[in-house]
């Protein structure tokens, strides 16, 4: 009974981390209408930067969130303004070009990480103690990371809902043409949004690397995990994304516990494929374009 409740709580906490992982992807998809296939590699990069900051400067990963966020924001600006916004999308298969560019970007980033940090698994030993709540013991690190992830997710939500910049982003996501007609500089909103999504991916990475070790090649797995969540929860739907994140957190934790890590990864992919076969348009019936 104690184990079951522990696993349940673990799963719910993991949900927060997943939510943060997926939010950047969701945001970018909403505005640019392209799945950023380098998303996982950006998470990895954020995590590895936090890893270096911890090892060389002794910076706690929670404090490292700020510099990682800033660095990845700049990287995102460069990628969006330098590459993605310059791709001509007119003509047959035009919309595929941006997708392929992010496919290339994924390899570019992953192998750059490999050059800098090598191929071994890295992790940050952060808050390794246990949180004792009556009969339950929970890992402190996960509790802290989960709390930080939920806080960031909430901040993003408030930013999108309450601020003018946030509203501008939502306007562009809903109708680029309408936004442009209202005097919004759509191109810059797209660049800013991509940078924001990239920064969020980096922040997620800084938290995830405290919980599970990863290596420079872990990117694609993280991309698919994030995408699964977005697909399950429905694009742009905060509540849906959160529920999906909790669901996947629970599945991951229980599969890890009963089947082991490899089977848990396989379970994730199988669930993704099976779910979409039952509901090819995703939970909310919005088909994704390539």
């Amino acid at each position, binding site marked *: 009974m104690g184990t079951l409740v522990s696993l349940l709580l673990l799963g719910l906490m993991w949900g927060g981390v997943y939510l943060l992982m997926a939010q950047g992807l969701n945001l970018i998809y909403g505005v640019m209408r392209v799945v950023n296939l380098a998303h996982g590699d950006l998470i990895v990069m954020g995590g590895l930067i936090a890893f270096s900051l911890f090892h060389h400067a002794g910076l706690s990963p929670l404090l490292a969130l700020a510099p990682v966020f800033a660095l990845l924001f700049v990287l995102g600006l460069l990628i969006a303004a330098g590459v993605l916004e310059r791709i001509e999308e007119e003509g047959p298969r035009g919309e595929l070009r941006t997708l*392929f*560019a992010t*496919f*290339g*970007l994924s390899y*570019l980033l992953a192998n750059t990480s490999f050059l800098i940090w090598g191929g071994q698994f890295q992790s940050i030993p952060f808050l390794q103690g246990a949180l004792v709540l009556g009969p339950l013991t929970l890992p402190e690190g996960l509790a802290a990371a989960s709390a930080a992830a939920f806080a960031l997710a909430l901040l993003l939500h408030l930013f999108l809902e309450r601020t003018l910049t946030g509203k501008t982003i939502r306007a562009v996501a809903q109708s680029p043409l309408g936004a442009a007609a209202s005097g919004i500089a759509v191109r810059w909103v797209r660049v800013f949004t991509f940078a924001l999504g990239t920064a969020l991916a980096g922040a997620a990475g800084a938290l995830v690397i405290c919980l599970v070790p990863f290596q420079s090649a872990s990117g694609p797995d993280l991309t698919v995990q994030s995408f699964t969540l977005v697909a399950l929860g429905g694009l742009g739907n905060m509540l849906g994304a959160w529920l999906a994140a909790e669901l996947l957190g629970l599945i991951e934790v229980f599969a890890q516990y009963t089947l082991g890590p490899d*089977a848990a990864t396989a379970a994730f992919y199988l669930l993704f494929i099976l779910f*979409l076969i039952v509901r090819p348009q995703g939970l909310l019936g919005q088909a994704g374009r*390539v």
Partner: protein
Amino acid sequence: MRRAGVASFSLSPFLQAGAAGTLAAVAAALALAANDYVAGLVFSTAVNVLLALGWNLIGGMAGAVSFGQVAFFGLGAYFTALLVVQAGLPLAPAILLAALGAGLAAWPLGLLMLRLSGIFFALGMLGLARVLALLANALDLTGGPMGMTVPAALSAAAPAFVAIGAALGAFLLILALLESRFGLRLRAVADDPASASAIGVAPSSTRTLAFVLAALFAGAAGGLYVAHVGYIDPASSFAGTIELQTVLMVLAGGIGTLWGPVVGGIVISLLSTFLWARFPTEEQIILGALIIALALRLPDGLLGGRKHPRFRPPLLRGAVEGVAGAAAHAASRGERAGAVLAAEGLSRRFGGLAAVTEVAFEVRAGEILAIIGPNGAGKTTLFNLLTAHLAPSAGTIRLNGAALARLPPPHRLARAGIARTFQTSRLFPSLTVWETLLLAALTRHRHWAEAEARAGAILAALDLVSVANQYPETLTPGQARLVEIGRALALEPAVLLLDEAMAGMNEAEIARLQRVLRELAAAGMAILAIEHVIAAIAPLAARILVLDQGRVLTSGPPETVLEDPRVIDAYLGPERLDVAA
């Protein structure tokens, strides 16, 4: 009809096959004459071309981009290793069986995975490759993470010959497919699955066949790879690097083109061999950057961006049969006595909105029934219900007296005799006018010559001969409408559904269409026409049905319906009556 223009130049299929054969012979001679290093290079280039041909078939030609074709490379590699190690087969038959095995596995997988669309399919395939890699990692049979050693081929030249042969075979097979009716179907499905199903082409089975062949090629490549390196493990057999290189080769050569994977395969193989020798650690960074550079600077690849008509109308022999001929064939499919198409109590709700409520009508052979109504009256929803693009919430539809299933696949309905046009023209961007009509005619006629005759008659009747070899983007809106109507007519339907066919037409085109519709009706075709241009359709229509807010307001002969105050009301609002009074 004349063969239009000499401006668009393209090689005949025989010349293309000859060119491919020559290229293969040169590669084989190179592998034989030079040292083992060069033979190895020829080998890996041929394997890469094979992989690229497979990826391009599903990702380019069938329009289903996949990021997990390496799944079938890995399957082919493991099948080969198991057949050699466990069953003691020699390499050559093992590779052949493994490729067939990968193709066979792809059949159910394709039926399943191709239910996903767009990005979901692309990433679903990535997931499939990961699951297979994890499986190979976990099983004892496959040697787990350590893999297996396999007795490799002794010389470098022998596998090179086999690889060249396999790549040439794959190329010729794709060439033959493009020259067949399957090629036309594939191009239509890649362009617009919904539009393809409206002319009787089943998107899923068309794509599944492409998927199976693509897997067969990838499986053969995997088998050849094992024969060459003599070793197999999950990390290298399902490596993302292979997917990266394959996508890069196709993009560099030109996605969706016949020669793109060959040219891209050769260029990128040589480049990556060079990079691997000079910059082993940076190789993948450079390849990744190259994809980005292609997307920015050369998005259509080295060979892409130009379209060549693959099929052209034959020289006209004898008199044109005329559109009436096509209609006469079609009319034989309609019930002479009763209603050809009838609806009873047809309703459709979208959440709280009742788009169509209890609509009933029937249309007989030789009759034109016009459907009019203000914007939002439910006209297009009614058409979508009649053509199974939407499921009705209630009601029945009868074709020649027999009730239709609740939601039959649209392509089956099109074959059963209900043909439609779309409100906004939906032609296939990569098919010429002639190819579009031919494709539709081929769903009715097994024999190529019959289909050509039928398509030719429609081409002449609709005054489209001069644009036969043009692509939709070069047509006027009115011509595009006529092509879409021609496409529907080529199905020889029992009933023709026109959704605002006259919108965007000039006066001459409207007159031409009116004449054609009269001929079709006289020959016995049942026609249902949604129209805004009431003045243009009223003289043709035997009856008019007025929809307002999803319900039938009234129906009857044009002269009574158009005088009905309720109809005037629905169109112009009650104020007009006040003013008139």
